[in-house]
Structure formats: C-alpha cells, structure tokens
C-alpha cells in the first residue's frame, strides 16, 4: 500500500530524514518509535504533504501513485489521513461545518455525490457515540478551547468520518491520560480492517498496549535503525532509547 524508499527530507536546509525505507501492506499496523528529534513527526508531515519540508531524495509510492506529486488535499482524497500531534484551532469555523466540508470534498474528489443531510447526520451520530463525543463539542469552533484529550478524540473522530485507507497517527497519545488513550485506541481499532493500514508514531510504548502493532521500527537520527515485532517496543520501554543509541554509535564506529 505504502512504499517509502530512501526518503530524505530537510527543513530550512537542515537534513532531518536521512534515508527512510519502509513498506506497509494493507491490513498491517506499523509503529514508529524513537527519541525526541529523531524525525518521527517530520516523516508524518512529509507523508501528509506539508510544504515546509523539502524532499531532497527518494520516493514514496502509495496505492501505485507517486504520493509526493500530490497536493495535500489530493492525498486525503486518495485515502491518506494524518491525525495531528497539535490539531489547529480555527475560531469561527464549527467542527460540524468543517467535517461536512471535508467529507463532501473528498466525495467530490472521488466522483461521488455529496452526502445528504440525513445520511451525514446518521454517520455523525454513529461516530460520535464511538468516540464518546457530545453534540456540544461539534457545535463549537474547531478545536478552540478544547482540552488536549478533546482535541485528540476529535482527530480520531475525523478519521472515523473520513474512513481513510492509510491513517497516520502522529503522537496521538501525547498529553492523554489512560482513559483517553483507551477511547482513542478503541476508535482506531474499530477502524482497522484487512483493506486499510495504520502507521502509529509514538514516543512511548503505552499506546501500543492498546493498538497492537504488527511491526515496530525505531527511528534515530533520521534513519530506521532497528525493526522488529511488538516485543521490540517492550524492550525499548525497559531499556530506554540509550541502548539503541549505543548500538548505532558502536556500529558506526563513533
């Protein structure tokens, strides 16, 4: 589904990603872990198409298309979704209006007719119940004054509404208490099926207790330095990132 080859990216001339190789197949859940500053969020942003990041080398193939050639909204139209680490507050735009526009623009991209009000409301109600979100939250301006937990739940709620094929969760667990993590993880798990894939970017192993990955990759200094199964996450939790750093530095003869 997603094939990243030798991906290098920089921001303001500074190299952040230094050659990423990663393949994700339909039905799989991958986790990317790594210490602060390793490039995790940059990878998520590059995949979603944020223009501050300049791709200097490499390629990303997504469902047979060259992902890097697509505008952010086209990527969304093709079923890519990024749950933001820091969802943006937009005063004056209600969450409902925003989601309705998003749903219908994506349908338009796919050549489908817009959802009528009844179908849209029915879908909203269903997903609201799933994410434990009340109507009052959706009538409020997008993310404005939302708590950290509300923002993250709102991200996964949007994901549920847009039903992506490839979802990227960028530190969706940061700033959440254990109950909120459960709700968020539960939402993600309900969306998992054999036809879609999830990439979880996280600093801590905690979230992976709830969203169990098929593969875990450790990102350090702009490269994936170790890959394994979910046991790797537990090992990291136990030993900390230093053991990875030491391994890499020894390997590179530092």
């Amino acid at each position, binding site marked *: 589904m997603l094939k990243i080859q030798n991906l290098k990216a920089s921001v303001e001339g500074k190299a952040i990603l230094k050659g990423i190789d990663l393949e994700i197949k339909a039905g799989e859940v991958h986790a990317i872990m790594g210490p602060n500053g390793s490039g995790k969020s940059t990878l998520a942003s590059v995949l979603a198409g944020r223009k501050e990041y300049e791709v200097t080398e490499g390629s990303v193939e997504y469902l047979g298309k060259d992902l890097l050639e697509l505008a*952010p909204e086209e*990527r969304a139209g093709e079923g890519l979704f990024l749950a933001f680490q820091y969802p943006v507050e937009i*005063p004056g*735009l209600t969450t409902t209006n*925003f989601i309705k526009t998003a749903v219908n623009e994506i349908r338009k991209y796919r050549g489908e007719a817009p959802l009528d009000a009844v179908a849209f409301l029915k879908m909203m109600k269903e997903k609201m119940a799933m994410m434990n979100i009340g109507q009052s939250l959706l009538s409020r301006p997008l993310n404005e004054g939302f708590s950290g937990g509300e923002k993250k739940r709102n991200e996964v709620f949007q994901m549920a509404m847009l039903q992506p094929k490839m979802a990227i969760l960028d530190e969706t667990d940061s700033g959440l208490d254990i109950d909120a993590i459960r709700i968020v993880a539960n939402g993600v798990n309900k969306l998992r099926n054999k036809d879609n894939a999830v990439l979880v970017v996280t600093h801590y192993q905690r979230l992976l207790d709830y969203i169990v990955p098929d593969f875990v990759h450790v990102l350090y200094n702009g490269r994936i330095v170790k890959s394994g199964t979910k046991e790797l996450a537990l090992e990291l939790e136990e030993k900390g990132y230093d053991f990875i750093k030491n391994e890499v530095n020894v390997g590179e003869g530092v």
Partner: protein
Amino acid sequence: MTNVEYLNKGLDQLNVADNSLAPARKNAITSFSKMGIPGAKHEEWRYTRIGNLFNKDYQFPAKKEGFSKTDLDGIRLPGHEEANELVFVNGIYASEFSVIRSKELVVQSLEEAAGNENKEIVALHFGHSSSLLKDGINALNTAFVHGGIFLNIKKGTVLSQPVYIYTITDARRESVLSQPRSLIYIGENAQAELVETYVTIGKADSFTNQVMEVAIEKDAKVGYYKIQNDRQQANLVSTTHFRQLGKSYLHTVTISLNGGIVRNNLNVVLEADHCEAHLYGLYFMGGDSHIDNHTIVDNVMPNCFSNELYKGVMTGKAAGVFNGKIFVRKDAQKTNAYQSNKNILLSADASVNTKPQLEIFADDVKCSHGCTVGQLDEDALFYLQSRGVPAPIAQSLLVRAFATDILEHITPKAIHDYVEQLISLKLEYDLP
C-alpha cells in the same frame, strides 16, 4: 487644503434661515472658508486623499428629480416588507419613496424641526459632530444643509420594525456631489434598530458627503448597522456621530464590501455614567477600493464600557486605513475601553495602515488596544487541506471564519443573511 471655486461661490450665495440650525451653520461657513477641503497635510486625512474628488463637473447643489419607484425596487434591502424605509436621493430626503410603518416614528424635515416643538433638541445636537471632527468636509455638509431629516423616536417607544435608510446617488445623467444629513433623537427608554445602505446608479462621477448625528437618552438601546457595497466609482465620506446622554446601550456594525474611496467616521461620545458601546467592523475590499475607518470613542464621564473590534480582509490592490482613537477625559475614572484591529492581506498589492491612538487624562482606567496585519494562517490552511479541502475552498472557509465574530453582531436576521450572502459572492469571485 484645496480651494474649490464652485463651493466658495455657493457659500457666498447661501441664505441661512433664522431657525435653530442657524448657529451651527454660521460656524460651519466660517470653518469651511478657513479650512477648505482637507489635504494630505491634515493629520486625519494623511492616507485618504479626497482633494481630487472635488475637481469634477458636479451637479451642485444636487437634485433628486429623475429617480423613480421602479429604480428603488431594484435597490431595496431584504426584510424591507417589515421595515420603515427612509430614502435619500442625491442627498435630498424623498418622502414620496419612503415608507413609515411604525406609527410612533416621527419623521420631519430638518428645517421644519428647527422651527417647531423640536427646535430645542435640534439646537442641542445639530452640528455636534464638529466638536470632534475639525475639518472642512464636516463643515461643508453643515454649511449647505438641505433636504435633511429629523427622526424622533420618543420616550418609551420600542420600534418593532427596523429603520432602513437608503442613501441613493443617481448619477445616470450628471456627476453628483450630494450631502445627506440626518439627526436622530432616541428618547428615554426607547429602542431602535437602524440600518443604512449606500447605492449609486449610473456611470457618472459621484461623491457623497454624509453626516448623521444621533442623540441617545437614558435607558435607550440602539443597534446601528452600516452596509456598504457600492460601485468601485462611488466615493463616500460617511460620518456617524453618537452621543450617549444617559446610561444607555449602543451597538454598531460597519460592513464595507465595495466602493471607491470610502471614509467612515464613527464617533461615540459617552456623556453619562455607565454607558455601554460596542463597535464592530468588517471591511473586505478588493480591486482599487480604498476603505478608511476612523473611529473615536470619547469617554467624558466615569464607569463607561466600550469594546471595539474591526477586522479587515484586503485583496487586489485595495488599501485600508484604520484609525481608532480613544479619549478618556479627566473625569472619566473607571473607564473600561478595549480596541482591536486585525487584518489579513490576501494579495501582495493590498495594504493596510492601522493606528490605535489612546489619549488618557484619568488615572484609574482599563484600556487596551492591539492591531495585527498578516496573511492567512498556513497551519490552518494545511490542516484543512490535509482533510481533503482544496486550497481555494480552505481559504474561503478561513476568511469566513475570520469574519464570523463580526457578522454575528448583526441582529436583524434579514440583514445578517444578506451580508453573509454578499460575502459568499465575494469569496467566489474576488479571491486570488
């Protein structure tokens, strides 16, 4: 200062009738002769040049003849079926086109009111705007006052129907320089909603120099909405001067969407304890339009509250000016006065000059001001795009979101919906 021969000649020939308009008019004649049309050296007119607008072959004094009811029907605002409609054509009040639906609403010509039982009120308030606006353009209107109206919303009257005031310029046959004038008295405990709009028809040059003065008594409540969506050739100086004479509530929304050179002077003088005033504005201009909002909140007495929020969205080569003055006089202790001006520039050729100006002579007050000029938030744009919303639509959504907290203060629903619709059209056609 520009000297304009036809105006000076007109002044020499003026015959000032002996009524309660006379003292203010005589002062204005002297003032205009001294000051003339403000030029670029006048501090309040630095960014808005109107001198050249006077060098046209105008029909002056203007006449209202030639305008018809059919012309009006194409102009009327939504909700007019339920509104009082006062119509000015080329600066002259046209009773034949006006519709008074509220029987409590008294409408008289200014000249008539200046000689009847209302003459004291007229004497007190007519020309009061000149105490804050010391320039020839204000004096010019007062000096030549003609065809103006006096509105009396008497003590205890709650107008259930809004008052729509149309300032129409008919420039189909000749170039028109017009000077509409009105004085509105809102008595104790009275309530009224006033909606003003400006429409120019025809292709000749036009320049409108309007002055409205409003006196608000104790416990009165007033909503005032100014909607400007005229042609790009239509030039306007629009002065609206409020006096809050007793503890009262005023709320104003100024919407500017199109026009040539547009200058709004909005003054609020808080002359009693515990007055409350809200000033909202949205200017969303493109093309070659020039929009200048000059506001003055003058705190004369203690314990007053005022809040001002003006927002600008500029596209094309449009130029904006915001100048917000707050005076706190020495007796006006415990004043709360807030001001904010936020601007978004959507094109490289658009510009805004913004200047807050606080002059505080009391020592126990809370005042704040702030202004910003920037572009649309890139993070917000990306967030919307990442959810599948194409960039142009994302931009529209963000501009609309930016305008929301101004538009929500337009209370008459028909007018609110109308303005939303105008903004939708602008977003569709005007965005780069």
